[in-house]
């Protein structure tokens, strides 16, 4: 924790760059503060999602059969594709941070555009999945019908899901509530992130990051990876319940 002091002694000889804020003694202090602040913010995000993960944990234990049945209505192909898309977008974002650090403006712009495009693909696939839920009457509150779980239809070429008792079938609504709340909150974070990506894109085109003042990009990178990691947890918890049966 002596770093501010140490940084001060270094800084007394160094020139202050123009983008150093007046209340920081050194650039190192400014950079450390920004990334420390970002990590703390991500901690609050973990707590925010943590509330829903707690609810998930409890209800999955109570209504395991309903969670299995609900999970099996999700498309594993679309879910897996989305996971791959999101991991790739994390890679392009990491490339963007690297390009910014090495002051490659062109590379940065391309990386941001790719990240943005992959984010759009993710949201596109997600909306296809949401639409499917709407058609199947699986949207809790607004348009929900549990009867498909009591009398399951066999898809062509597949065995029918085992039927649930009416009581347990109704509890699939809790599963879908959590599905929509968790993926919806995740999607909201993606949308906010994409807004920030567009903001960064405009600034990058104008050359605002060429002077090495890239704290914003680095910290946004942390945010984007965090949103990615949330999905890494959501995917198995929501899509892959008891798939081995």
């Amino acid at each position, binding site marked *: *924790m002596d*770093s*501010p*002091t140490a940084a*001060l002694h270094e800084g007394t000889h160094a020139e202050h760059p123009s983008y150093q*804020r*007046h*209340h*920081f*003694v050194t650039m190192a*202090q400014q950079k*450390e*503060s920004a990334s*420390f*602040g970002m990590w*703390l*913010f991500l*901690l*609050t*995000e973990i*707590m*925010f*999602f*943590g*509330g*829903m993960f*707690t*609810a998930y944990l*409890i*209800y999955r234990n*109570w*209504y395991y059969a*309903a969670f299995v049945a609900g999970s099996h209505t999700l498309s594993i192909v679309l879910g897996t594709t989305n996971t791959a898309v999101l991991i790739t977008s994390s890679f392009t974002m990491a490339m963007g941070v690297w390009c910014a650090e090495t002051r490659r403006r062109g590379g940065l712009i391309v990386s941001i555009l790719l990240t943005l495009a992959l984010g759009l693909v993710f949201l596109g696939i997600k909306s296809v999945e949401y639409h499917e839920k709407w058609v199947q009457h699986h949207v*809790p*509150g*607004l348009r929900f019908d549990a009867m498909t779980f009591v009398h399951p239809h066999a898809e062509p070429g597949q065995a029918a899901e085992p039927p649930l008792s009416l009581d347990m079938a*109704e*509890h699939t*609504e*809790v599963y879908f*509530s*959590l599905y*929509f*709340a968790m993926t919806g*909150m995740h999607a909201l974070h993606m949308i906010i992130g994409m807004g920030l990506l567009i903001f960064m894109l405009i600034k990058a085109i104008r050359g605002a990051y060429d002077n090495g003042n890239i704290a914003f990009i680095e910290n946004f990178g942390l945010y984007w990876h965090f949103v990615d990691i949330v999905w890494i947890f959501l995917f198995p918890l929501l899509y892959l319940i008891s798939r081995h049966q």
Partner: protein
Amino acid sequence: MSTILSLPDQTTARIPKRNYLNNENGLLSWLLTGDHKRIAILYLISITFFFFIGGALAGLIRLELLTPQSDLMAADTYNKVFSMHGIIMVFLFLVPSVPATIGNFLIPIMVGARDLAFPKINLLSWYLYVIGGCLTLWAMITGGVDTGWTFTTPLSTHYLNTNVVTAGMAIFIAGFASIFTGLNFIVTIHRMRAPGMTWFKLPLFVWSHYAASILMVLGTPVLAIALVLVVLERTIGIGVFDPTKGGDPLLFQHLFWFYSHPAVYIMILPGMGVISEVISTFSRKRVFGYSAVAFSSVAIAVFGFFVWEHHMFIMGVSNYSTLIFSLLTMLVAVPSSIKIFNWAFTLYKGSITFETPMLYAFGFMGLFTIGGLTGVFLGASGTDIHLTETYFIVAHFHFVMVGGMLMAFLSGIHFWWPKMTGRMYPEKLSQLAAVVTFIGFNFTFFPQFLLGMLGMPRRYAAYPPEFQVLNVFSSAGASILGVGYLLPILYLLWSLKYGKIAGNNPWQATGLEWQIQSPPLTENFVEIPIVTQDAYDYEWLERQKEREVTQVG
């Protein structure tokens, strides 16, 4: 009563020509400021506004309870009044009271920095607070909320037709104001300390704000998600808290109290920081057991996260978890009493003087001790079953929050008023206000302990006639308390223009904030100080003064 008020030569003191108040002028220079001191003043004005709205609602409650029947207002109006009183006082006054005002003003100065780490986020925090506050007022004007401040499900999601969604969103937004304040404090304390300012040279005020900030950062997001789920439940009926769909209403309470129990430590810890500073300054002694007091703040923050279920002992949780949470609840009493004992030992053989901040601090120590000990009654699950949901619990948390926190807030406001404004408040009048507040407070809330023991339930507009005598006592006390709160606002406003010039260090205190001009410069320090002295080192202060005298001579 001896006073150290006249120690520095007041006749030669002048308001410095350049300071943070007159550095820039015009409304916009305030509304777009990044200066932590100006944001503190903005916060101070807004929380005072909400305090008086909440206080007026409290007045209505006490007026209604003057008689056993519900005659001043209908029973459902009464429900709205006490709900709005709770929501405004908890989320819009107590949570930001000390941290966002005094803490915002002082944390950067105390650690020897020019500003908080993120000035723009600090300003954003104030705007979020104002938006949250306006939405709350909007919810109140357009019909109010009658869930109580706890938004308990399924009452809030299914049975009430009032503005739960608006109020919920208001608290959601105000919650982010609190998160950003806490985040800013933690980063500032970690990364912005002046050279030589090690953790154990920090004033205890900073330690207690650090602990409170941890709670804000980790707790508030959980409240946010709980409120989002309530709003979703109410608007589209997602079923997470709805028993007819398999949801569990108790889950909401777990999420809500996971924040709202630590929230009481968010409220009280910064107040404890104020008391440490005040007690030390007016006993002219280093706080006894500095590191014990520092670590007790952190211990309160840690234990505070593991006791939330004691709010739900009667609500069908398992007996075994009741047993464990009861034990953990008792554990919180340990760090709290470490603080009280250490303050008492600080007073022992100190050169005590009785300026207004010290009177409020004494009030805090007495009332907080009573409030804390009655908390042990409620933490013990046996007595809790008898006492919970009665006026005993109302009296308990008002002793802690009003008798403790509000006293600490007023103590701090008086103590740092000379630093914030450059002028002194009128001493005799403010001592009177402190005494009136103390007397009024005890008159108001002590009878409520007795009412609770006798079994009067909380949250009803009407009560059996045999409870009337104690209720009349309580209502009469509330009017005295009201006078106690009106006095400071009047004479503090008066002092802005007519108060005596304070000078840099009217209390001869040792903190870094007292070594700079009052009111401070926008950049706080001309040169970042290099800290060599410990906190509360009065001998160091004497040596500094001697050196100044010889230099001038």
